[in-house]
């Protein structure tokens, strides 16, 4: 009995000492854990193309096709991290043109049911062979409009050649990227 009580007293003392040690954490506020967030900024390439006059040739008639377009699905726009945690996107579009005519670029973002969410329109300045002209365009979608990106799933690129008298020969390079900011 004596041994038993001694054992208990000593063991309790050890536990108390241990707890005293382990409870000593000062000058911190663990409730701040609720404010922890990840805020990555990602630079992501989107679409590219590099086309010449053959792309504007109507195979049926052989004439100049003044308007061409294509649609690319951007499935990642439907992912959870976009739907829940995206805070802003800064799109960047760049054309390098050696065609000697203006070309109107329309970049449209559509929902699954092809409803236009937002569009970026600008005119690509004419260049010349050996004198490429660069046209750049930015579109900042901030928090108030970010739902437009969340609802989008398709990116439509459309080019419309403007009338002119010079021969339509040259190349058109397109580069695009998005600067996606998140808050998880």
């Amino acid at each position, binding site marked *: 009995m004596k041994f038993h009580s001694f054992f208990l007293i000593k063991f309790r003392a050890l536990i108390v000492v241990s707890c005293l040690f382990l409870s000593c954490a000062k000058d911190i506020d663990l409730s701040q854990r609720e404010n922890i967030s990840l805020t*990555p900024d990602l630079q992501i390439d989107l679409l590219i193309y590099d086309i010449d006059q053959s792309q504007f040739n109507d195979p049926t008639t052989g004439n100049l096709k003044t308007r061409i377009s294509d649609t690319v699905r951007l499935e990642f726009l439907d992912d959870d991290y976009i739907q829940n945690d995206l805070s802003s996107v800064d799109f960047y579009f760049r054309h390098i043109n050696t065609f000697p005519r203006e070309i109107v670029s329309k970049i449209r973002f559509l929902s699954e049911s092809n409803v236009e969410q937002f569009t970026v329109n600008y005119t690509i300045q004419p260049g010349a062979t050996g004198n490429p002209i660069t046209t750049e365009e930015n579109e900042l979608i901030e928090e108030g409009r970010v739902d437009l990106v969340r609802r989008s799933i398709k990116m439509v690129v459309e080019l419309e050649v403007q009338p002119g008298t010079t021969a339509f020969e040259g190349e058109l390079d397109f*580069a695009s990227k998005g600067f996606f900011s998140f808050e998880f």
Partner: protein
Amino acid sequence: MMWRLICFFLLFSSAVVSQNKPLLFNVDDLPQTLMSNPGAQINFTGHIGIPLFSQIHLSAGSTGADLYDIFADDGTNINTRIQETMRNMNSRDYFAVNQQWEILSLGWKLDRKNYLSTGIYQEVDVFAYFPKDPAVLTNEGNSNYLNEPFYFDDVSFTGEILTVYHLGINHKFDKRLTVGARAKLYSGIFNAESTGNTGRFTTYTTPGGRNVYRHEVVDLDVLINTSGFAPLKDEEGMTVEQATAELLSRSFFGGNVGFGLDLGLSYILDEQFILSGSVQDLGAVFQRKEVENYRYFGAYETSGLEPLFPDLDENDEAIPYWDIFEDEIDRNLRDETTNQSYTTWRPIKANFAMEYGFGPAFLPCHYLSVKKVRYMNLLGMQLSGVKRPKGFVYALTAYWDRKINENQRFKIAYSLDDYSLTNIGLMYTRTFNKFNVYLAANNLLGFPNLAKAHSASIQLGMQLIFNK
């Protein structure tokens, strides 16, 4: 001859050293000293640990960050502090948690020269290097790190829970030399490891290239091995209590088996100088049951999707560029889950110590006791090391081991290690008749405010010790 031995000892110990439980090393009154050096000089003829209470060991440490770095109550933004802390850490910083719980422990003198000890303990060991590049990529993204690779090599961790059954012999070879060995049978309960990974992700700026950037994953090969994890993963809605119960149910021969060996010696150079050294856990666990391996490998680069402007009618389907892109990624960046057995090496520990004794003491006379000389004071230096995936983790400890009387003893130690330059430890042991209790704690200066401590460690226990 003596100086040659000292030089050899120092040279060897500078090559293979680090930190385990230095406060219990070479404490010849405590049976636990046989767990860190089976060839230690000992001063008892038998021991029986109080079941479940003969040794409780807890240690945790982080070399790069402490709680205060993250949760300081100073009015600044916590996310800014996290970002700064992550930037200040590097991929060799690590987090370590080790817990040992002795379930059974006993030993007795077989004759004047041999002491047999045996027991069971349960161990949890978690060691993870800070995965700096993946962590920075997740927290900050690639925007501020263009043209800088993010290395997946930084992902390196080991974690295991196991029960250890051991049997050791301590043999007094002659007046100077004592040697010992301990055989161990490991029963692995849970294991997860991922080491030796490769790969890098880079976002290059490409002036004159096809797009603004080029994203590149090169030489990716990340492997995560697990055993004992699959059944927990498959149980949907399993609570922490249920998972713990499931793990504990495998404690006794329920898991993967392994074998190991501890070796140790101590050598009296002259009456006052004693050298000792040991290696622990020379062994492996063969992970055969409930194994799942997750592997991610391959290489890929992209500058974006390329529309081809095909000549389509209104009713024609657009080219599925995204599906083609995803298929290409799946072909080049692959993942697979397999059930291949694997072997995990236990973290080998090495300890070397040199002691100088002064102030002679006298031992109680007993026919089984052969240790002739004892000192009230021991000044010592100990080098210790634990093998981790990226190399040994070292510690250098200087200590004063003071015997107050036959029943009380303390040891005060100062350690240099990866955690701090102010690591002061204290061990105190007291014996009441045959009942012994001991308490040891490292980094005492950190205990008043653990939030600012990079490490903390405590060992305590109680047992019956017989010396006549």
